[in-house]
């Protein structure tokens, strides 16, 4: 089991250079059955990362490029009249895949965004009165440009909450950059990738992750963190119970990747930034220049 995961990690790292930490976070997120939001400027490898993840895990993959004129039907599919059989046949949209890469999700209109987000929450879609199950496992890996850029519809907070983690890639470091410039095209590399896992295997891993031991002492720590966000007036609002669960699940994924069968405080700290970053907002009057500001505040909390 460990072997497979290590292999998967190293394969992804061969394509996405110099981002070992982020790759690990992504994998932890998927192991914890969470959807993933990758936020960064264009061209740093968001799409490549998502694609590599899907291929490596052996999951069926669809990419949807979100644009402002994308309609929900473009996403979900529609019933189309078939002249030969004289009936309506359902043509499933690109959402019927195990991994959806929702590229530049914040370029789409809120209507299309919520169609996707509903699918994320329910694991099913309702089209023309008929409810259809989505494949299993079902992941959304969304990418978005930072909000400073023009022509975007920022995701509302309630929808941001559906993503287990939000990670930022950042520019590659010097060595990785050089390797990128020298090396093969990423697209070619992607084409050569072979899956390391298969869906059944991955579901089994996910189930194992869920059983990782969480001690009372660790729950004390998680609660101390949640309490802090609710008491500390630097935060505009505290973490929701769902966010608390997200933190715990993500930490389980991280601990599993670390080869342990229990969660320790360091796991929480490792996933803290990506899990709470998009869920906590500073009060008015607080300058939160750092993107990791909320996690930095919470890192100060003592471990009980």
């Amino acid at each position, binding site marked *: 089991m460990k072997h497979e995961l290590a292999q998967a990690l190293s394969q992804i790292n061969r394509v996405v250079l110099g981002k070992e930490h982020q790759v690990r976070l992504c994998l932890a997120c998927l192991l914890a059955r969470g959807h993933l939001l990758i936020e960064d400027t264009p061209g740093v490898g968001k799409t490549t990362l998502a694609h590599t993840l899907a291929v490596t895990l052996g999951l069926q993959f669809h990419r949807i490029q979100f644009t402002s004129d994308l309609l929900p039907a473009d996403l979900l599919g529609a019933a189309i009249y078939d002249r030969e059989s004289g009936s309506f046949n359902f043509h499933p949209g690109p959402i019927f895949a195990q991994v959806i890469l929702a590229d530049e999700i914040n370029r789409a209109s809120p209507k299309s965004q919520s169609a996707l987000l509903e699918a994320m929450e329910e694991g099913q879609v309702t089209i023309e009165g008929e409810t259809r199950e989505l494949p299993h496992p079902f992941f959304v890996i969304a990418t978005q440009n930072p909000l400073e850029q023009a022509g975007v519809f920022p995701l509302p907070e309630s929808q941001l909450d559906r993503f287990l983690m939000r990670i930022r890639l950042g520019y590659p470091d010097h060595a990785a950059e050089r390797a990128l410039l020298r090396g093969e095209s990423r697209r070619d590399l992607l084409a050569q990738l072979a899956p390391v896992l298969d869906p059944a295997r991955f579901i089994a891993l996910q189930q194992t992750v869920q059983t990782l*031991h969480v*001690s009372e*002492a660790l729950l004390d720590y998680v609660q101390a963190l949640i309490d802090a966000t609710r008491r500390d*007036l630097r935060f505009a609002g505290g973490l929701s119970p769902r966010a608390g669960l997200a933190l715990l699940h993500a930490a389980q994924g991280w601990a599993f990747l670390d080869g342990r069968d*229990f969660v320790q405080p360091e796991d929480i*700290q490792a996933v803290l930034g990506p899990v709470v970053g998009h869920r906590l907002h*500073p009060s008015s*009057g607080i300058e939160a220049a750092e993107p990791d500001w909320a996690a930095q505040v919470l890192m100060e909390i003592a471990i009980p």
Partner: protein
Amino acid sequence: MRPSHSLPELLWLVLPLALVVAPHATKLPLWLSLAWAAIALWCLLRAARRLPLPPRWLRMSITVGGLAAVFAQFGTLVGPRAGVALLVFLSAAKLLETEAPRDRTGLVFVGYFLLVAHFLEDQSLLSAAYMLLALLALTASLIASQMPQPKAVWPKLRPAGLLLLQALPLALFLFILFPRLSAPLWGLQQDDTARTGLSGEMRPGDISRLIQSDEIAFRASFDSRAIDPRQLYWRGPVLWDYDGRTWRTVQRVPDGGIEGQGIGRPVSYSVIMEPHRQHWLFLLGLPAALPDIEADLRSDLVWLTHAPVLSRMQYQVSAWLDYRYGLELDDASWARALDLPDAGNPRARALAATWAKQGLGDAALVQQALDHFRREPFVYTLQPPRLGEQAVDDFLFNSRRGFCEHYASVFVFLMRASGIPARVVTGYQGGEYNAVGNYWIVRSRDAHAWAEVWLKGEGWRRVDPTAAVAPSRVELGLNAALPVTERPVALLNVETGWLAPMRLAWDLVNYRWNLWVLGYNDVRQREFLSRLAPWLANLNAMLWLLGLGSALFIFGLAGFYLLRQTRIKQDPASRLYARFCRKLARLGLERRDNEGPADFARRASSTRPDLAGAIDEITQRYVALRYGRAPAETLAALRQSIRRFRPLRAAGVA
């Protein structure tokens, strides 16, 4: 430069400060109050419009100009009045350049000081309540200066209120135990606005002016039975010298002590006197026991303090209400009690002479004079006509309209003219009984003047000629004695209206406040403490308990929080791990409390590679116990490995 404070943030500073400064405004020069308000408004405007700071030279010149103006106004920069003015001005000047959060904190502390300074001027219950409100606002302001979300009000008021509530036990403790000084700490100067009250002189019209005032002179409570208001002659200054118009008190009377005898049982009463800036204390009856305060009782039963009464004071006296005193009259007093101007008022002198010639006894002569007032059409009125040059004659034979000072004055004149030693006594008569609190409220309007005549074999006897003219004055009080049209309007409403019970209840609250809070002086403190525990009532014990109590309070609080922290560490694995951490801390490897054990182990091992094996083993066991599913035996293993862990301070390793 952009102002760093937004308008709501600045409001959090300016409004509480304004609350604190406002009560001072009545005592400050007008220009200062206006300047403060102008500067505060300008600062708000600056924040709203995002205007830049005024240039440095302007700020400097405003500050220097203000200091100079305060100095010019008071002639000094120290002392309570000038000091408060200075602080008020400086708080405005600081407001001008408030930029950093630190400035706000500093200003709030100035506000606290100004708040306390207000008690130098006014200690009433109402102002204490107001100050409490201001205190809450200031504390909230302090919290606001450390907190974002300037618009939220409740999240600041609530912790401020909680903080103040938490401070309450300590405040009470200090209030009760902090040693009181018999003299005030500062030479408190009360305001200069003269309080109405009795003075050492009496001219026609003096007392009728006093009557207009509702101001409280003192409150008195009796220990025993109901008191007849007719007995309540509160004795103030005794006036001996008369120049034809004005009666004056004398600075010195012959010593000789007080020879007197009381009849029946003495009553005990307690008086809380409002400051009147004079020396005399009001006394009822012939004292049997006087409290140990810095005051002397003169032979004419005038009780004088050494220093003017500048702050509210309380005293308890036991005295006989029926008494005789001054059976022997020395020559000097005799002469003084008969002294009249050489000339003037011939008709009055003639009248007195005819009485004297009748050869009645002295007592009968006194009665004759009183009968004269009763018989002739004398009128008791607040608005007597002006008297001419020969005031006594004019009053006796022409106007016949007058107030108590007229009657007392003319009566003593007649007595002296007919050869009976006499003098005028001023003070208060009667008062209002507060049935709710069982005490008497004596106000300026109860001021009264009466006479004392000396009779052989009897000594000084009190004679109240006003009672002969208007008996109801003494029996029922001023209002009943005056014609309806002359009753002071303000007085009429409160005394009889539906508000009367409320007014009395409010006075009771004030009375208790004065008695138990303001009147808690060194004497009362000793009394109270000795009632709690006799050994407490000395300074040393007080100081010891104070120190001990405060220390206990502080350490108790600290202990409480420590306990709360360690309670979490009740887990045995945690306790062992804490011991391990202490061992490492001795090597300079301190675990931060937000550092996970594995992270700490990594850091410690990289600093001390020689210990890496042991550290790793201990940490793994601890983590397995605390976070993993380790079997119970691991605890013993952990204990053992920690016991074995005896690291040496490695030389050359930081």
